[in-house]
């Protein structure tokens, strides 16, 4: 039998070596101790030092207090932290967290700070939790920074036997994102997602400090966006009258996102991916629902805006202008991917227009793009495009245009060489839909075009500046995971997105060392905790491993 003192030492050592912080994304600078603290039953968060604290900050404070009480996350160790009870009972209590803004900082709303241009957002914060139970503090130079700090603060705590506690005081965190763009794309056209599902996703994004919701809101299959002045598009192009985002819904989503530190960039993909516009405006669409679809589009149904037609250009510019007024973001994506040349080659109207003006197809595309972008720039928007607009076509774009790299991570270098700011969205790392099998009918042996499934580990091992020069690396704005929804709906939204999308959230915020194997070793236990915490908050995250592995860090590694 062991003498009692040996047992105590043994237990303490175990506690120290087991994971005691579940922060995700990992702060850029983090110092922790080994002193336990328990949360006082009267714990409060004060923002009283902030003059005229905006209502969204006040709400964020309330939300943080609620999460700390309701998370009830048990530590992911054998015994789920029940062994912590003894040490926690004797610990100091933490009764207060005080928020304050730096000298001279203006207390704008979180929403307005979030909607600034990406480089202009100030998300930095400092968080301290003393070991003696005196008050914790978060300081920042913006309410957005305070919000990020609150998000971190809620992740510090575990629960056992009714006590909320942490084990690693004192804590000192200096944090700020490595990249200004940390996004998630959701396609609400292939299948529709109600506002509640979108909001639920925004919540989960905010817990991961993601700040950019890329809303691929319409496509060839359906047009759920009700655009003032263009309501016929949704009236005839939405799947049904319930599968529509009204202007009020959009405002609701935008403000819900803003209050959570998230900017909403809408995408109206043009000139391709627009077949459904033919329901209301057949005059603007070439090769609408032409068959065989595979000759006219990458997926059914075929149909693209008649970009050589002046009337269509004017219509599109008007539509984009109207949409841009619905979204306060400085960013607006006009898409530009997968333009099908055969569709236009076979379209009599397009050929007539080209003949009449003497333009080539590429020249017509340039005219179309310049006209639509000019309209957006007039609204104060920065255009965002998919990579083909830079790599596959000869289109004049304004210098500040942002380019989304999607086809392959191999294309990043070429976009950077052209001097454009870029966003990583490569299918070979970040497509959440890959690996779900072929969805096209009558194709029993068809697999996902972008097989295999992108594991969190694969995404996490992405190097954002691979093969780039130092100057080119400065063009990298960050990146995003993406969910195309041919095989997704509200039914599998959570499990197909989470916790995998957390993987890139940390990539862009924390900029791991680049030593993939070392990074993955430390990431997995934290990602498990993040995933379990998200579950506690009602998100149906998938299991990354059997629970046996989740509570034994490293035990299920390849060579363990």
């Amino acid at each position, binding site marked *: 039998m062991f003498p009692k003192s040996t047992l105590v030492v043994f237990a303490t050592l175990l506690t120290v070596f087991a994971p005691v912080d579940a922060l995700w994304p990992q702060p850029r600078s983090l110092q922790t101790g080994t002193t336990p603290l328990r949360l006082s039953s009267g714990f409060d968060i004060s923002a009283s030092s902030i003059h005229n604290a905006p209502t969204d900050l006040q709400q964020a404070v309330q939300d943080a207090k609620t999460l700390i009480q309701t998370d009830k996350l048990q530590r992911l160790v054998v015994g789920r932290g029940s062994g912590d009870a003894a040490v926690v009972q004797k610990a100091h209590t933490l009764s207060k967290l005080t928020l304050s803004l730096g000298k001279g900082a203006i207390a704008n709303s979180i929403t307005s700070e979030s909607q600034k241009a990406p480089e202009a957002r100030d998300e930095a914060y400092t968080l301290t939790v003393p070991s003696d139970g005196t008050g914790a503090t978060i300081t920042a130079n913006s309410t957005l920074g305070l919000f990020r700090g609150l998000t971190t603060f809620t992740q510090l705590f575990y629960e056992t036997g009714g006590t909320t506690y942490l084990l690693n005081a004192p804590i000192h965190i200096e944090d700020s994102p490595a990249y200004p763009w940390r996004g998630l794309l959701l396609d609400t056209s*292939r299948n529709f997602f109600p506002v509640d599902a979108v909001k639920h996703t925004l919540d989960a994004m905010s817990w991961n400090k993601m700040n950019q919701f890329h809303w691929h809101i319409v496509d*060839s*299959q*359906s047009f759920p966006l009700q655009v003032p002045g263009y309501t016929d598009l949704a009236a005839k192009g939405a*799947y*049904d009258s319930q599968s529509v985002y009204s202007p009020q819904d959009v405002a609701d989503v935008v403000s819900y996102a803003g209050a959570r530190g998230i900017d909403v960039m809408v995408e109206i993909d043009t000139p391709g991916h627009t077949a459904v516009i033919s329901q209301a405006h057949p005059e603007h669409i070439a090769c609408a629902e032409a*068959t*065989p*679809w595979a000759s006219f589009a990458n997926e*059914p*149904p075929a149909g693209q805006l008649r970009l050589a037609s002046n009337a269509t250009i004017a219509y599109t510019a008007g539509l984009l202008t109207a949409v841009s007024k619905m979204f306060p973001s400085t960013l607006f994506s006009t898409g530009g991917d997968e333009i099908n040349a055969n569709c236009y080659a076979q379209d009599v109207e397009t050929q007539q227009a080209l003949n009449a003006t003497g333009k080539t197809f590429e020249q017509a595309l340039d005219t179309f793009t310049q006209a639509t972008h000019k309209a957006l720039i007039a609204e104060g928007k920065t255009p965002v495009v998919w990579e083909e607009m830079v790599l596959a076509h000869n289109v004049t774009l304004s210098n500040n245009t942002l380019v989304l790299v999607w086809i392959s991570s191999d294309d990043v270098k070429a976009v950077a060489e052209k001097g454009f700011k870029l966003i990583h969205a490569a299918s070979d790392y970040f497509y959440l839909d890959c*690996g*779900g*099998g*072929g*969805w*096209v*009918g*009558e*194709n*029993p*042996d*068809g*697999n*996902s075009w972008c*097989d*295999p*499934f*992108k*594991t969190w*580990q*694969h995404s*996490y091992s992405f190097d954002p500046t691979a093969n780039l020069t130092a100057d080119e690396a400065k063009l990298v704005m960050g990146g995003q995971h993406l969910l195309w*929804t*041919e*095989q*997704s*709906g*509200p*039914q*599998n939204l*959570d*499990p197909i997105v989470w916790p995998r999308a957390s993987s890139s959230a940390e990539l862009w915020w924390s900029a791991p060392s680049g030593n993939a*194997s070392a990074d*993955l*070793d430390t990431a997995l236990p934290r990602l498990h905790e993040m995933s379990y915490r998200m579950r506690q908050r009602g998100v149906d995250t*998938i*299991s*990354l*491993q*059997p*629970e*046996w*592995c989740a509570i034994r860090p490293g*035990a*299920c*590694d*390849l*060579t*363990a």
Partner: protein
Amino acid sequence: MLSSRPPHSFLALLYVVTCMQSVLCLWPIPRSLQTGSTPLTLSGSFSIDIQVPNAPGDLQEAAARTHSYLKTDQLGRLAVGRGASDAAVLHGAKQLNSLHLTLAGSVSKVQSISSEAILPLGSRSEEYMLSIPSTGGTATLSANSTLGLFRGLTTFEQLWYTTGETIYTLEAPIHIVDSPAFPYRGLMLDTARNFFPVSDIKRTLDAMSWTKINQFHWHITDSQSFPLEIPGFTEIAEKGAYSSSSVFSPSDVSDIVSYAGARGIDVVVEIDTPGHTAIIYESHPEHVACFDASPWATYANEPMAGQLRFASPATTNFTTSFLEATAKMFPSSLFSTGGDEVNVPCYDQDEETQQILNSTGQSLLEALQTFVDTAHGGLKKLGKTPVVWEDGSTELVSIGADLILDHNVTVANDTVVMVWSSSEAAVGVAALNLHMVHGPSDYFYLDCGAGEWIGADPDGNSWCDPFKTWQRSYTFDPFLDLTASQQHLVLGGEQLLWTEQSGPQNLDSIVWPRAASSAEVFWTGATLPDGSPRNVSSALPRLHDLRFRMVQRGINAIPLQPLWCALRPGACDLTA
């Protein structure tokens, strides 16, 4: 002036197209199906009259559930407009007032669905006849058993759509004569890698019953956790479950068994032995070799290592006893003892095993034979038919079947072998003249394609990539390369969910509607009611329909395609 309205005959033509689409929407499609083109609406006072003497409670409850689904499904037809244009033809349509349920012939004693569902394979009566006259009034459902009536009720529920307040079908008269092509139509769920609460299992049983799946293969324990509380052996779960709330108590088990039975489903439990048992070490270290040995990859196919020390007579007795105790918890005539992935190096390094083998002079294979014989002998005394995994992955394991066959041919004849490693392994099982259930990873593993879950392996993929689409599963041929004289050995098949990367969070979405694929493969067989071969293009619109109906009933089944495609049968086919 020209009328802006299309002539009446044109409308009628459209209506024919409509009918042809919706007639296809039964899943699994009945073996014999005749339909007409007369619309019928369901009367507001529609009733199901059970004209069965002493109707058992589970039949009455089944009828009540059907009645409820008719009202709550609220499924709009999957066509552009979601059936709104049907209102015109429904106006003034005849009404169906009731469905009469009768048992055919002279049934001396009416049995409950539950007791019919757990009869041995081959002796269950699932056939039924359903007739709905075009004149409305009364529909009739008859069968030779309450289980058959239940299958017919399931079909009846799928005939109806809703537009506005009207519940209707467009294809009366309907005459269906139906029975399954194969007696075993299953779904396997692993509740050991990650735990699933009883409510998730019940929801899955509901969805299974809607597709006429009749076997729940419950892979209840494994190396990672032991959630089953076995009377007399409660210490195994006490120390081996993930937590005290991640446990199936005896009352949970009987709750699940009776819930399943009332839905025409037999529960075959699997206690995988001698491998996949590491966690038993927590309560009985004396019975487990190479527990948590490192590197795990040397001693097991996945972490953690640990296998029953089967060469030890004490371990053999212990195992036989707790298998018998488990068998008493499950009324099924089937019991799986697993037998897959037995790791030889684990025993080579185990001192106790080597000492025993030295002292008895037995080889490892001979010791395994003794172990299997003893365990199966115990189960057979309790009236159970043993089920084992085929195993092509190690030399040792294909022996599981060999052993039984060599040792006692008469015993071997009724052992059921589950084919899992590859569809090609079925031929080997047939060569042993053993009955088989198809569960090949290359067609039916629902977990494939979700990437590597082992840590520190960023470029690892799913071992059984790619993802098995519904289309892939649907094209499975149950008779493969078997000779005509071997085909009788095929009992059916099942799709399987191993849960290293699954939990309650994605249970619905990873299983449904894909698992419905094999449900039709093994119910309907090779041909459609019109005699043509079963095929993915006519199946897809029906499977969409089933999926949307499941969503209406609260199952988070994934979309198979964009809704645009689901509303336009064929439009998203490869060459459309």
